[in-house]
C-alpha cells in the first residue's frame, strides 16, 4: 500500500515536472508546478510530516503560486517564441544533466542508509507541537533571523515595485 501510494504520487510529480519544462506558456508551467507541490505534500504525509504537508499546501501551492499566477496575468505573458538559433545548449546540457542524474542515483543506491523502509506511521514526531517546540527552543535564533529576512524582503518588494525605479 505504501509503495503503491509512493509510486502513484511520484509519477504525478515527475510527470508534472516534465510538463513544466516542456510547456511554452507560463500559465501551463505554473499549473504543473501546483501539481508537483500537491503530490509532494502527499509524500510528506507518508513520511510523517503533517505540519510540513499543510504548510506546503498553504504557503507554496496557495500563496506563492497565487503570486506567480497574478504576475503572469498582470504582465499578460504570452507563449515563448520559437528560437531561430540551433539549440547548442540542449546538445551540451542534456547529456550532462543525464550523467549528473545517473551519478547521483548511483551514489544514492550505494551510499544511502539501507534498512530504512518508509512506512506510514513509522515516524510521528512531525506534528505542529513537535515543530513548535523545536522551533522555539533549539532554533530560536534562526527563527528570529528569518523574521528580519522577511522584513527586508517586504521593504525590497515595496521599493522595487514603485513607479519611478
Amino acid at each position, binding site marked *: 500500500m505504501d509503495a503503491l501510494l509512493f509510486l502513484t504520487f511520484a509519477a504525478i510529480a515527475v510527470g508534472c515536472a516534465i510538463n513544466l519544462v516542456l510547456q511554452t506558456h*507560463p500559465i501551463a*508551467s505554473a499549473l504543473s508546478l501546483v501539481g508537483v507541490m500537491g503530490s509532494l505534500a502527499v509524500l510528506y504525509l507518508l513520511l510523517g510530516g503533517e505540519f*510540513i504537508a499543510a504548510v506546503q499546501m498553504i504557503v507554496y501551492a496557495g500563496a506563492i503560486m497565487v503570486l506567480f499566477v497574478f504576475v503572469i496575468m498582470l504582465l499578460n505573458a504570452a507563449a515563448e517564441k520559437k*528560437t531561430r538559433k540551433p539549440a547548442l545548449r540542449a546538445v551540451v546540457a542534456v547529456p550532462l544533466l543525464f550523467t549528473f542524474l545517473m551519478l547521483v542515483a548511483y551514489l544514492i543506491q550505494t551510499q*544511502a*542508509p539501507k534498512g530504512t523502509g518508509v512506512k506510514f506511521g513509522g515516524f510521528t514526531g512531525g506534528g505542529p507541537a513537535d515543530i513548535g517546540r523545536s522551533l522555539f527552543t533549539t532554533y530560536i535564533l534562526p527563527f528570529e533571523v*528569518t523574521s528580519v529576512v522577511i522584513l527586508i524582503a517586504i521593504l525590497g518588494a515595496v521599493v522595487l515595485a514603485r513607479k519611478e525605479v
Partner: protein
Amino acid sequence: MPSEFPIPLPNLPLPDAVPLSWYLILSAILFTLGVAGFLFRRNIITVFMSIELMLNAVNLSFVAFSYHLKSVDGHIFSFFVMVIAAAEAAVGLAIILTVFRNRQTLEIDEVSSLKL
C-alpha cells in the same frame, strides 16, 4: 497489502515498505528537471518557477532524511526553506515587474545587459 482495502489490489511485486533511496532518487529527478527548466526555458517567469521546483526537490530530501533519523530537524530546515522561498518569490517577482516595465519583454536573452 492490507486486506481491509476495499478495492482488490493486483498482486504486484512491490516492497512492503518504501526504501529510503526511492525518495532520494525522486528528489534527484525533480532537481535535475528543475535545472533543465532553468537552462532551457527563456521566459523569465518559467525560469523562476524552475528554481522553486529545485527548492521543492531539496525539501523532499530533508523530510526523507528526517524520517530516517527519527528527528524533527529536517522538517525545521524545510520549513525555513519554504519561508525563504516566499521572501524570494516576493522580491523576485517585484524585480520581474520592474524589468518588464523598463524593457517590455520577458525573454531572458533580451535582458542580457545591465544598462539600457
